[in-house]
């Protein structure tokens, strides 16, 4: 029999190694799942993880990597700060949608004016939209002690309804022959978020994501606020002893996460998605939760995790068209990854030792 023994200090080695181990285990378990679906597991794994980077269409797909990873990283960095502090904002999807709607609304209000000011104002509006949506759970938590998990999640459903209203109602393209969806930003240069370097897939959202990674890294490593965030998550009473105000932290963490999610939504809707439509959001807000954990709530880790998760999206689409692998399989695959990661985390704090033989 084996038993668990708590390590005196968390293991640094396993802290780094668990994500890799989790990915490897997920690939194995995923292979079994693909085989159960009647697909060749090796081919499936190759299609998902290898072909987008080095296969026949890699020249195009590599660019897609940044397109998908950008919003995931941007949202996950924001979420990771809150998760570290023990503030569970799981409504990033809603903040993402509201950011997109606010950003787009500002742009569409200015249509067809051409001015370099329009896009920066839209960026601010996007961040503001996400921030406001995140402030609802934040204020309810600080004022009324309401559970932020449930409130932020409920607001996702509300945001989805607002999105439906926007795309069929107040933001609908007046020239769109009554079809749902807003004007397309690709035909409105002052408000568009184009590819910055052709073929890379890099748009302003990717730049913002990189900036967020760097800023979060500095914050967590060198700044007292980052220290307070970590402290509050690990030992809430010690944080109060240190003089950290839990309420201020709730407002800060939810605010940052909301603003970043809002930014991601705004960049997405003006760039890759092109318009407000009823289903532009593609669950990035939820997948980012997996990204944040896979990156071990560490900004640099999240950068890699975001790229990996983007790869599974692209590879999953490839596998869906080429091998007929159901797209839900990739969603299950991503969920599985989070499971293995949480399970492997055990090794960071515990040692597995053979149970000593008991003497009676």
């Amino acid at each position, binding site marked *: 029999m084996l038993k668990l023994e*708590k390590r005196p200090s968390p293991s640094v080695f396993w802290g780094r190694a668990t994500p890799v181990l989790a990915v490897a285990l997920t690939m194995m378990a995923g292979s079994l799942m693909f085989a159960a679906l009647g697909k060749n597991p090796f081919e499936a794994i190759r299609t998902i993880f290898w072909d987008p980077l080095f296969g026949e269409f890699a020249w195009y797909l590599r660019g897609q990597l940044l397109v998908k990873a950008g919003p995931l990283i941007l949202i996950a960095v924001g979420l990771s700060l809150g998760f570290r502090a023990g503030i569970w904002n799981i409504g990033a999807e809603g903040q993402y949608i509201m950011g997109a709607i606010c950003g787009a609304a500002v742009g569409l209000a200015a249509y067809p004016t051409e001015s370099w000011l329009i896009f920066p104002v839209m960026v601010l509006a996007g961040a503001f939209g996400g921030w406001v949506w995140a402030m609802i759970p934040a204020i309810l938590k600080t004022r*009324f002690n309401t559970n932020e998990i449930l409130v932020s999640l*409920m607001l996702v459903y509300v945001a989805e*309804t607002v999105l439906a209203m926007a795309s069929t109602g107040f933001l609908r393209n007046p020239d769109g022959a009554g079809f749902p969806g807003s004007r397309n930003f690709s035909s409105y240069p002052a408000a568009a978020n184009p590819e910055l370097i052709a073929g890379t897939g890099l748009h302003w959202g990717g730049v913002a994501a990189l900036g967020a990674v760097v800023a979060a890294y500095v914050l967590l490593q060198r700044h007292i606020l980052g220290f307070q965030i970590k402290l509050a998550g690990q030992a809430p009473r010690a944080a109060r002893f240190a003089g950290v105000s839990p309420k201020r932290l709730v407002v800060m963490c939810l605010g940052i996460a909301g603003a970043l999610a809002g930014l991601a939504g705004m960049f997405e809707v003006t760039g890759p998605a092109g318009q407000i439509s009823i289903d532009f959001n593609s669950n990035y807000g939820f997948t980012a939760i997996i990204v944040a954990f896979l990156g071990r709530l560490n900004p640099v880790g999240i950068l890699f995790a975001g790229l990996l998760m983007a790869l599974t999206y692209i590879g999953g689409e490839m596998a869906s068209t080429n091998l007929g692998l159901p797209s839900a399989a990739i969603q299950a695959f991503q969920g599985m990854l989070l*499971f293995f990661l949480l399970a492997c985390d055990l090794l960071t704090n515990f040692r597995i030792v053979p149970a000593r033989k008991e003497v009676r």
Partner: protein
Amino acid sequence: MFGGIDPALLIASLMVASVPILLAATGELVVEKAGVLNLGVEGMMIMGAVCGFITAVVTGSPALGFLGGAAGGAGLSLLFALLTQVMQANQVASGLALTLFGLGLSSLLGQGYVGIKPPHTGAVPFGPLADIPFFGRVIFGHDPLVYLSVLAVAAVWIFLRNARGGLILRAVGESHEAAHALGYKVRRIRVLAILFGGAMAGLGGAYISLVRVPQWTDGITAGAGWIALAIVVFASWRPWRVLLGAWLFGGITVLQLNLQAAGSGIPVEYLSMSPYLITILVLVIMSSGRGRAALNAPASLGQNFHAAR
């Protein structure tokens, strides 16, 4: 504005509408009373919905379908038990993982079943009782699960209040250290509670896909699991208040659907977001007033237990 809505029909249908969240919330109540916070209710419900649906379609028996749904939910909750009770993983993160995984897996499993009609779940034959005016329709015209869900609340209430097992369960949720010191198997008790919660959530999910909707579509539970979690908070961890909360919520759902159908002046979007907004409102009311609801929460809720020495 209520013109054209029959009150007997409204009450009867609110009882039906509340069944899924009532079942799931009753299960989660037991889980939380044991000191475990399982946020994966949504995932377990949707697994129950798809497993129940498939079982019912394949066997042609709704009863087996419900069993299958319970098994599906319990199966997924076993993963949660493994993560949190054996692997010592964070309960919040594990619950989220359960939901994300459940949503993906259910849509994978349910692929071939979209657009199929499940076998019909009949009403309990009460004979002449069903013909009593008003009450006949309100009380005696339902399928077995409606009665089962209310019975489950009663059973949980009696169990927690009077049974020795219930006392031990509450003790484990209050202080796992103390329970361990007295020699109770904290982990085993918690795993059992988690499995019960999973089965109840699965049953609730199966009710959605077999009775309430009844068909299979991706994401069919549409947040019902989260609402069940909110109802446990609303109920301050008391079984009868879970029933009240579920009926209130069921009432709002039915009312807004009826209003939509009746073509009231309120835009459809506002009506369809109303259940979520009202849930938030209720949460705010329950948790304010110097955290009164929180005072009733089991003291070790959400904390993992590792017997160090």
